[in-house]
């Protein structure tokens, strides 16, 4: 499906990204850097925050540079730790723009929510947002748990969704952190929602290199890895679609204060629309593999997409 067809696109983006490195200087400069100390007057600074998570910082930096390119002045407050802390700052207006994730944020505001699927979660999130906090458009890009198989295994049994695992004629062993064994989205959920029987073996590295190795060795056939994890691409893995919502949908979603005006919202929404799970993985990979700074990754991507020239 979409996942597979976009591999080509990802490769193209990667090539373009490399080609565009030289142009980063033009947008790297921060026009507001000199007059941060409240010059007052017309343009207010928008404060952009991010989680203490490299991928979140990259997205925030993309917002920042895109806004700066349209002559907004921004202040960067990246790498804020806990959701408990920064959500308070968003609510009281000391942060104006923040890349968030739909499911976890909804569960923060409404711990008892039953919404799990992409659109249900988004609608509930819009309703749950407190006064003065607006939820902009959610992006197709996700950062959530997902069931993955190797490309060969997916090809052999023609797998697209988790339900297709029912076609598999061999035994399936799921390898993941041990807590998944007793969680509703583990083997029990696979059986209940998809009619798929799996064995379980614990691998306590959270979908890291040991899990990937076990997949490639055929010791396990099914694993849980984050949709935004670059190792999905580098190891040629395939994310299985989860139409029943075993895993809480967690799409990238910008959260904005009232000070983010309609034009700025339109800019941010266009970024969200352009970002796919594959692109997010590609951006993350540049941070993980190449150790590129967020500012460079953001500038390159904005130049590639033509959103900032």
């Amino acid at each position, binding site marked *: 499906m979409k996942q597979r067809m976009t591999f080509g696109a990802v490769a193209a983006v990667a090539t373009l990204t490399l080609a565009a490195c030289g142009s980063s200087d033009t947008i790297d400069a921060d026009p507001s850097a000199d007059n941060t100390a409240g010059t007052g007057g017309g343009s207010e600074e928008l404060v952009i925050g991010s989680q203490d998570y490299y991928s979140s910082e990259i997205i925030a930096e993309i917002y920042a540079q895109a806004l700066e390119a349209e002559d907004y002045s921004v202040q960067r407050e990246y790498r804020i730790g806990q959701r408990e802390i920064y959500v308070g700052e968003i609510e009281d207006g000391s942060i104006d723009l923040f890349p968030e994730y739909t499911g976890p944020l909804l569960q923060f505001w409404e711990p008892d929510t039953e919404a799990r699927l992409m659109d249900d979660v988004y609608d509930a999130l819009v309703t749950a947002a407190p006064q003065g906090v607006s939820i902009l458009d959610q992006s197709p890009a996700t950062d959530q748990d997902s069931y993955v198989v190797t490309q060969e295994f997916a090809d052999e049994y023609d797998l697209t969704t988790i339900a297709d695992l029912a076609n598999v004629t061999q035994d399936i062993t799921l390898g993941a*952190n041990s807590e998944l064994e*007793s*969680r509703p989205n583990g083997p029990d959920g696979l059986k209940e929602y998809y009619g798929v029987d799996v064995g*379980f*073996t614990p*691998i306590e590295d959270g979908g890291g290199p*040991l899990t990937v190795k*076990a997949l490639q060795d055929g010791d396990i056939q099914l694993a849980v890895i984050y949709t935004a994890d670059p190792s999905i691409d580098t190891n040629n893995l395939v994310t299985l679609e989860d139409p029943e919502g075993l895993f809480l949908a967690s799409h990238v979603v910008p959260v904005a204060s009232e000070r983010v005006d309609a034009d700025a919202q339109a800019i941010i929404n266009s970024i969200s629309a352009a970002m796919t799970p594959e692109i997010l993985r590609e951006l993350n990979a540049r941070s993980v593999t190449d150790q590129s700074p967020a500012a460079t990754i953001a500038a390159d991507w904005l130049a590639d997409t033509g959103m900032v020239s």
Partner: protein
Amino acid sequence: MDLLREALVWLADGGNWAGPTGITARLGEHLMVTAIVVALACLLAMPIGVWAGHRGRGGDLIVGIAGAARALPTLGLLTLAALALGIGLVAPVVALVVLAIPPVLNAAYSGIATVQPSVTGAARAVGMSSRQVLAQVQLPLATPVLLGGVRSATLQVIATATLAAYTSNTGLGRYIFAGLKANDYPLLIAGSLLVVVVALVVDALFAVAQRFSVRHR
């Protein structure tokens, strides 16, 4: 204390002892892994240590190797081994054998080497061959020390064999990891208590064996 009480309640529940993931099975797996690891460590380290002690040579090398091996973090070693060998029981066994070798090696070397030279000299003087000195004088005299090394290795392995559950469906570590990751602290504590009790019981058995070996040498 509520957590401890809940852990004890969990342990007292007979239902938790039965079945392929029950305590009895996990306990058996844990002891099996420990036995395999200690046996392999003895097989590898005992001959080298005894030989070096008997020849009175290579002591510095053995102390050096044992010291370096002690400094290796077992979890790191396990991850490396699993990346090379894949998941399952082999990688943890390799990592645990490396953990178990230093105490066995040290004890084998020093147990033999510290037998009084006057005693071995006397044995030679009455016409014993080098092999006879080793088998009939040095080894019997060193037995309590050798057992001490095996005892120390076994206790370390019992405690650390919980890591086998890092990459395989094995042993008491399953309760500890499951409890840790799911914030199920009673389960975590129950698993830890089981490991502690196993370690104490096995240590007591070794203490008896060591005393017996002192009396009968």
